[in-house]
């Protein structure tokens, strides 16, 4: 590996791949991208419906939350991507951008570099451009399940506006979702941003290397220390910035392990203090979801899909259920009077989504009720082994539970409004507070969207400034969902890619006025 590295990007996820590409567009800049996971060669990554099989493999972080007091005391499984492409290589491929209100809030927190217009520019840049052969291939599902139409008809019957796929999440309404697929296969951020760079001599990508800490000269970040798969320890320096892109769990974990955080916490962990930034790890947000499972019809039980026909459809034309992202349609709605933007998403899935999708035996369908704009805030800190301890504090704020319960009632109405009729014995109606309490206690799970733990802002309490520079030190930025001041009302992959596009613009703009030391 060359010693002349300008930028060290830690984490090849939805943000890190974007930075690696955009910063190495300048052939005079040398970029090294370090990923703790392996290359993205597993077949489960390519086959859209196979993604639940990636959980528990070397391609996913295998974490759990602490016991959640408001969810029956359960500890929730919290996987995230650990391979080239990060979570964009193991997710459900949903491509939604969020509501303008989200970005108005970002601009209020961090200034006009993050306003709706800037993010609209970043959003368009995140989608594939023929001219640069860069960005995400995005579009309609190749072969959606016909039953998704029944869900959308039911949404229409309860008064939800029909939208085009590219409008979903940007305003109130329902429709088919856009997905990051190409020719019926997953198209990850690694496909969109790393594959086009293979000819560049000034970008080095290393997999299976775990960054243990950031190295400092005083308060100036000068490199990182990492281990390879053999456990050997190395150091790599850089002339410009260390760019931390490890996600909303990994990024605050790395800052804390490197001496940036709450001084009392670091003292308790015997980690020498580099900079007192008490906000590191706080402001944790996530989308909590509660599934309503609808069992299969007698037809589906008596005449199961012919597996050999499905196999042929997939391997001849990348069609059929194997090409499904398992979350095909959605509605973004307001259930609280006076809400300034949608507060609930109803997510339609062509299977009974249990055990994070790993149980594929039951057909039927699921409507997941998603709390889009939670008021609760959790926290991440270091455990004795210096791995992240995760407390999302789901529903800790008393305003969240009633909103989620109203969403569950709406989902029940949508199921009852299905044009084909749904036998009430096929699902458990959630139409009372007691029923809502039961399903929340027993079935609520993460939608895998952690955000906010290195919040950006103009205020001194924020962790990073509007240029994403970590306060109290120099040469160090965080670029990923951790810097989001509030979680967008969207599946967070597209907003993270757009955020990284905007960050790359800001970094390149400051390159010219802030020469390397």
């Amino acid at each position, binding site marked *: 590996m060359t010693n002349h590295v300008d930028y060290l990007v830690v984490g090849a996820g939805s943000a890190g791949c974007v930075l690696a590409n955009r910063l190495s567009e300048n052939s005079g800049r040398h970029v090294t991208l370090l990923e703790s996971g392996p290359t993205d060669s597993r077949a489960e990554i390519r086959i859209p419906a*196979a993604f639940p099989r990636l959980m528990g493999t070397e391609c996913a972080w295998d974490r759990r939350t602490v016991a959640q007091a408001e969810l029956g005391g359960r500890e929730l499984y919290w996987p995230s991507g650990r391979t080239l492409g990060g979570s964009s290589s193991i997710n459900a491929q949903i491509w939604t951008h969020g509501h303008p209100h989200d970005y108005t809030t970002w601009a209020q927190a961090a200034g006009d570099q993050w306003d709706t217009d800037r993010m609209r520019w970043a959003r368009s840049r995140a989608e594939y451009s023929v001219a640069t052969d860069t960005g995400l291939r995005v579009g309609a599902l190749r072969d959606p399940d016909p039953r998704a139409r029944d869900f959308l008809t039911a949404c229409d019957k309860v008064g939800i506006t029909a939208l085009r796929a590219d409008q979903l999440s940007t305003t109130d309404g329902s429709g088919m979702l856009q997905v990051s697929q190409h020719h019926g296969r997953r198209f990850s951020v690694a496909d969109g941003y790393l594959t086009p760079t293979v000819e560049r001599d000034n970008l080095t990508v290393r997999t299976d290397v775990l960054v243990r800490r950031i190295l400092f000269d005083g308060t100036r970040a000068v490199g990182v220390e990492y281990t390879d798969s053999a456990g050997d320890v190395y150091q790599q320096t850089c002339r410009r910035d260390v760019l931390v892109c490890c996600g909303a769990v990994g990024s605050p974990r790395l800052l804390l392990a490197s001496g940036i955080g709450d001084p009392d916490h670091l003292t308790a962990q015997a980690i020498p203090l580099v900079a007192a930034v008490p906000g590191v790890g706080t402001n944790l947000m996530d989308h909590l979801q509660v599934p309503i499972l609808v069992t299969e019809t007698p037809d589906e039980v008596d005449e199961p899909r012919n597996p050999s026909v499905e196999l042929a459809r997939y391997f001849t034309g990348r069609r059929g259920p194997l090409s499904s992202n398992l979350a095909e349609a959605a509605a973004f709605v307001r259930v609280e009077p006076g809400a300034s933007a949608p507060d609930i998403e109803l997510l339609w899935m062509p299977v009974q989504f249990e055990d994070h999708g790993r149980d594929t035996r039951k057909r039927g369908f699921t409507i997941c009720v998603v709390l889009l704009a939670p008021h609760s805030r959790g926290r991440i800190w270091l455990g004795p082994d210096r791995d992240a301890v995760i407390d999302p504090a789901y529903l800790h704020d008393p305003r969240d539970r009633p909103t989620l319960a109203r969403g569950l009632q709406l989902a029940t109405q949508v199921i009852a409004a299905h044009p084909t009729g749904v036998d009430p014995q096929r699902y458990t109606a959630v139409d009372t507070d007691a029923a809502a309490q039961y399903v929340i206690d027993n079935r609520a799970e993460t939608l895998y969207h952690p955000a906010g733990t290195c919040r950006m802002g103009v205020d001194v309490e924020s962790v990073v400034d509007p240029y994403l520079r970590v306060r109290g030190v120099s040469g160090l930025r965080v670029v990923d969902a951790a810097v989001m001041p509030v979680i967008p009302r969207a599946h967070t992959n597209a907003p993270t890619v757009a955020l990284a596009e905007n960050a790359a613009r800001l970094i390149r703009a400051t390159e010219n006025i802030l020469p390397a030391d």
Partner: protein
Amino acid sequence: MNDTIAPRLRTILATIASKNDTDISGEDRLVEDLGLNSMSLIELSIKLESEFDLGMVDDTQSTNLVTVGDLENLIRTAQSSDTRTA
């Protein structure tokens, strides 16, 4: 390369069907004889995708996939028409 498809495919199917690969013939039917079902479908597709370099074939023509031999032929066709970079 193609002449190795049959034994490699039979090794995969033997795992899925819990049989010896020597007990699997080209005439065996995937569903009726080897017990392929919706549970093992994803498992089989992952193994096929991992083992063979599969593109797409012309999906405007219906493919009659019933037997192990049909699947061998499909893999041969798909291997010669990789479109992933298209």
